[in-house]
């Protein structure tokens, strides 16, 4: 047992410093106001302070740190995307993730597991080959493997899948990983806060004012703030914020649900995804199976989870892993995914001067947390879109210049 734990147990007034500041009132002015204290908003605050020395920053959240999609996601990290722009971007994110525990002095439980995207038919196998070739070309470890190799990595899998959709192969991606989502948000919050950034929880943004020079004020129930720079990093609430400044986007909000089983002995050391079965799973360090499915079918601004989701998902999971039939589901929940037509994010500058967007993270944004924070901080500090996010700008829709990542989505949508 560590001395630190013993101190907690035996010395009454031994307490760790608070991780984040709890500022009382809002100041009248900030250089930058970040809306949303999810992983993305907090990462941007951290890199603004660390890389650019910009610390007169307020991060405002209507709820609590990490309470949005950051604390609701299934934490899969990978870079086996389909377009060169996507692959390069997510690869940089993985590189940042690997050193993040040290950088933030917070254990984010980053755990490289390898990632298998199962192919149950010829067309998914073809997409797997395509992804593998794009990945290899860009130096990313991805390859198409045989059913036998899947079985070697996961002996519990039933490859004939109950007889109807046998596994014909898989895209194997060695860098596939998981991490603790809360720790990522808390680590960035701790670091930003330690550098002077103010994090105001329970402070919703209800309006944004503009004048002839662009952004001028941010309105909250706790007061009006003067600022010339606003970053919207609110994922599932993006359309409400963009509406405040008259910026139009193609984002649509759909619920995405997930669940965990009761903790069981470790047996699954990798990440298994099946687009055809609309399901994916991994085992957390606590022993729970973390499982997810496709999006709910209808636009909905709600975080209610449904019984149909669990029954539908378990039905598919049992096709691959019948031995789990006696395992109980412990918890289920939903987040609101900000979907884009090309399954790529919408990032960077907008037609409104001083209004920056970090959005369109749909079902795939947790893995991008470090790199989106870093590139958005650079975009804000230099007032120029970071080269890595150039193709993710909002104007691509006006010009029919889409990115085309749908084929690399984890699950069929």
């Amino acid at each position, binding site marked *: 047992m560590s001395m630190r734990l013993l101190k907690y147990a035996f010395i009454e007034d031994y307490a760790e410093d608070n991780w984040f500041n709890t500022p009382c009132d809002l100041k009248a002015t900030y250089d930058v106001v970040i809306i949303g204290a999810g992983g993305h908003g907090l990462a941007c605050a951290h890199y603004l302070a660390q890389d650019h020395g910009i610390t007169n920053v307020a991060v405002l959240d209507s709820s609590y740190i990490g309470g949005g999609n950051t604390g609701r996601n299934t934490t899969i990290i990978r870079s086996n995307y389909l377009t060169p722009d996507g692959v390069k971007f997510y690869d940089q994110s993985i590189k940042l993730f690997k050193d993040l525990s040290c950088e933030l002095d917070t254990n984010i439980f980053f755990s490289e597991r390898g990632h298998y995207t199962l192919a149950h038919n010829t067309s998914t196998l073809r997409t797997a080959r395509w992804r593998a070739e794009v990945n290899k070309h860009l130096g990313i470890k991805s390859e198409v493997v045989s059913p036998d190799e899947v079985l070697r990595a996961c002996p519990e899998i039933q490859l004939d899948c109950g007889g109807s959709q046998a596994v014909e192969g898989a895209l194997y991606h060695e860098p596939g990983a998981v991490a603790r989502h809360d720790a990522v948000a808390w680590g960035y919050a701790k670091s930003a806060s330690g550098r002077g950034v103010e994090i105001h929880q329970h402070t919703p943004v209800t309006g944004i004012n503009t004048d002839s020079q662009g952004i001028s004020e941010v309105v909250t129930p706790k007061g009006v703030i003067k600022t010339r720079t606003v970053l919207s990093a609110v994922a599932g609430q993006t*359309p*409400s914020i963009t*509406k405040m400044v008259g910026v*139009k*986007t*193609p*984002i*649509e*909000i759909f619920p995405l649900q997930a669940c965990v089983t009761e903790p069981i002995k470790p047996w699954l050391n990798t990440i298994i995804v099946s687009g055809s079965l609309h399901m994916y799973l991994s085992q957390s360090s606590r022993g729970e199976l973390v499982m997810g499915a496709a999006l709910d*079918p*209808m*636009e*909905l*601004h*709600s975080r209610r989870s449904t*019984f*149909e989701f669990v029954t539908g998902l378990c039905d598919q999971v049992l096709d691959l892993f019948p031995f789990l039939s006696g395992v109980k589901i412990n918890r289920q929940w939903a987040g609101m995914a900000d979907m884009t*037509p090309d399954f790529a994010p919408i990032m960077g500058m907008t037609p409104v001067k001083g209004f920056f967007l970090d959005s369109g993270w749909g079902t795939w944004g947790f893995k991008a947390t470090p790199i989106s924070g870093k590139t958005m901080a650079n975009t804000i500090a230099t007032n120029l879109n970071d080269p890595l996010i150039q193709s993710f700008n909002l104007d691509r*829709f*006006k*010009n*029919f210049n889409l990115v085309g990542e749908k084929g690399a989505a984890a699950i069929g949508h």
Partner: protein
Amino acid sequence: MKFFQFPLLGTRAISEFVPAHDAILEPIDLEDNISAGDWVYERDSVPKITTEFWYHSTSQIWFKVERNTGTNQIYRAEVLRE
């Protein structure tokens, strides 16, 4: 499970339907204020009452459904006719 009273079909689970997107009208003149890209892609996905096209595959009937995207309450469903 969520149910609703549909004309012709009676009470049905809404999971039986394939929802399509908002019923957006064809613009009269694209050149005027919006580009084709804007018309194809722009959405106003805030909580609101909206009209959608839903398809019931077993009966092959399309419906026009009025629904609140904030609460998921369905107000009205009518058979879609030309």
